[in-house]
C-alpha cells in the first residue's frame, strides 16, 4: 500500500503569540508536528504494519519544516518530501495546487492529513486536494479500517458518529481519538538519517507563479483584548451560588 501523509510544522501549542512588525514572531518559538497530522502519521504507520507498503511524509513550508519531517521519519515513515519555495504563497488555494502537482505524479492508495492545522485553523488544504485529485475523502475520522480495497471509517460530525465506507484510493483527515501517536525511538532517530529526503521547488513541479497565484491575503494581525481577572466570590457556598445568579441577572444581564 502506497501511503502519503500531509504534514505541517506548527508552533508548539504551549507558545504565547507575539506580534512584531505586523508578523507573528518566531523568535525562540518551539515547533512541533501539527498535532492532528501526528495522528495521521501514526495511522499511516499502523496501516503499513498491517498491510505492508510504504509511507511518505510530504510538507509544503519553510526550510525549518525539515525538522518535523525528520521526526516523522524517526517515528517510522520511509521517505520525506519537502516542497519549499519562497514563491509559494500561504493561501490555501495555492498550497493545494502545489500538493496536487506533486501527488498527481505518484500513485497513492491512501492520503492522510490532519483535521486542521492548529495555527491557521482553516481546514481547507486536504479537502481541496482530494477534489483536485478527484479522490473521495472522509474528514475528521476517528477510526480507519482497510480491507479488500475499501476503507471503513468512523467520522465525527459534531458529536454524531457516522460509519462510512469508501473505495480506495481515498483521502482521510485525522481527528483526535484516532490513535495514540508513538514517540520516535533512538534507533528510529539513527535510521532516519539514512532515509530518502527529497527537496522540491516550484520548477521541479513544473508550476508557474500564475498557476499558484493566491486568492486571499492577510492584511493585518491583532491580539485579542486581554481578559482581566474578575471577582472571587466570598462567604458560604450557598450564598455564593445565590450571589452568582443575582450578579448574572443584574450586572451582566446575561440571564
Amino acid at each position, binding site marked *: 500500500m502506497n501511503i502519503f501523509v500531509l504534514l505541517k510544522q506548527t508552533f508548539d*501549542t504551549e507558545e504565547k503569540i507575539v506580534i512584531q512588525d505586523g508578523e507573528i514572531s518566531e523568535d525562540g518559538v518551539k515547533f512541533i508536528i501539527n498535532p492532528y497530522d501526528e495522528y495521521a502519521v501514526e495511522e499511516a504507520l499502523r496501516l503499513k504494519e498491517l498491510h505492508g507498503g510504504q509511507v511518505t511524509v510530504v510538507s509544503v513550508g519553510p526550510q525549518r519544516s525539515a525538522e518535523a519531517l525528520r521526526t516523522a521519519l524517526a517515528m517510522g515513515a520511509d521517505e520525506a518530501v519537502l516542497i519549499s519555495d519562497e514563491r509559494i504563497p500561504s493561501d490555501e488555494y495555492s498550497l493545494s495546487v502545489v500538493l496536487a502537482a506533486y501527488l498527481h505524479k505518484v500513485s497513492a492508495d491512501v492520503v492522510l492529513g490532519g483535521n486542521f492545522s492548529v495555527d491557521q485553523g482553516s481546514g481547507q488544504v486536504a479537502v481541496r486536494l482530494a477534489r483536485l485529485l478527484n479522490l473521495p475523502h472522509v474528514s475528521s475520522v476517528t477510526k480507519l479500517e482497510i480491507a479488500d480495497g475499501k476503507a471503513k471509517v468512523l467520522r465525527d*460530525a459534531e458529536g454524531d458518529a457516522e460509519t462510512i465506507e469508501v473505495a480506495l484510493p481515498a483521502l482521510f483527515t485525522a481527528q483526535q481519538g484516532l490513535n495514540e501517536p508513538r514517540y520516535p525511538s533512538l534507533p528510529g532517530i539513527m535510521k532516519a538519517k539514512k532515509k530518502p529526503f527529497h527537496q522540491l521547488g516550484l520548477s521541479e513541479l513544473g508550476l508557474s507563479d500564475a498557476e499558484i497565484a493566491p486568492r486571499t491575503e492577510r492584511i493585518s494581525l491583532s491580539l485579542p483584548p486581554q481578559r482581566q481577572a474578575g471577582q472571587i466570590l466570598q462567604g458560604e457556598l450557598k450564598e455564593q451560588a445565590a450571589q452568582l445568579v443575582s450578579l448574572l441577572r443584574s450586572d451582566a444581564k446575561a440571564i
Partner: protein
Amino acid sequence: MSKHYVVIAEVRSGQLRQVCLEAIEAARLTAEEGDRISALLLGHNLSEPASQLSRYVSGQVHVLDHPDLEHYLAETYCSAIIPVLESLEPCAIVLGHTAMGRDLAPMLAAHFQAGQISDVTAIHRNGSELLFTRPVYAGKAFEQKRFINGPHIITVRPNNIPPAAEAGSPGEIIQHAYTAPVNLRTIIKDVITKASGRVDLAEAQIVVSGGRGVKSAEGFKPLEQLAEVLGGAVGASRGACDAGYCDYALQIGQTGKVVTPQIYIACGISGAIQHLAGMSHSGIIIAINKDPEAPIFRIADYGIVGDLFEVVPLITEEFRKALA
C-alpha cells in the same frame, strides 16, 4: 450590475440552524445595495425550514429535498449542489463553520478555483474593500484577510455575527430535482446521532464545561443538570476527554472546538493555555475550582473556590428558582 450571494443552509434534527441566519447576515454585510441573497437548502422533509428561510432572503430559496440527502455526504451533496450553483452564478457562497460547512466549503472552493476565508468572526467594510476577521492559533491572535479575485467562499463561526432580521416579503421557494451521482465511491452505513435533541456546542449560548476535576463519566451528571436548567450545552477539557470521562467531540480548546457562548462555566478545569484558546472569547466566564491558585481564575469574571460536586448543584438550584 447586481450580484448574487448564495448561503448554503443546513438543518439539524429537522430544524434550521441558527448559524444559517448568521450566514445570511454575513452575506448582507458583504453585499451592496441591489445585490440579491438566496439560500440553498439540502436534506429531506424540508418544507418547514425552507419556508422559514424564505422570510430572511431577498432572493430565492433553492431546495434539494430527497431521502438520499438526509445525511450529509461529501460526494452526494457536492454533486447535487454544483449544478445549482453553476446556474445561479454567485459572486460569493457563505456557509456556517459547522461539520458540514467545514467539509463542503473547501470542495466547492477547489471546484470553482475560489478563495476561501474560513471561520469568520467579523466583517468590516473599508471603503470598497471588505475585511474578514478570523482567529489564528485558536484565538491567540486574529487576522484580517481580504479576497484578491475570483469567487468568494466564506464560512462563519457560529455565535459571532448577529442573525439576520426578516426581509420584506418572503422569497420564492424553488424545488430542484436530485439525481444520484454515477459512480458513487462513498456510502454512509450508519449514523449514531448522539448529539441530536441536545443543544449544539458550537451554537450554545451557555456552555457548562467539565475537566479532570469531575473525576468520572458519572461526575458529568451534575453538569448536565445545570446545562439542562440553563438550556445550554456540555463541553469538556482535553483532560476529561483523555481520561475517558466523555467523548472527544466535547473537547474545547486549541485542538478541540472553539466556543464563544454568552456564558462559559468551567468546572474542575485548571485553565491550561490550550484550553483557554478555545473558550477565552466567551462573554462571561465563571470558574469553579477547589484550587484558589488555578490559572482559570486569572481570566474568569466570577470565581467560586470550592468542590464542584457541592457548588454545581447549589448553582443549579439557584438558577432553577430564579428562572421559575
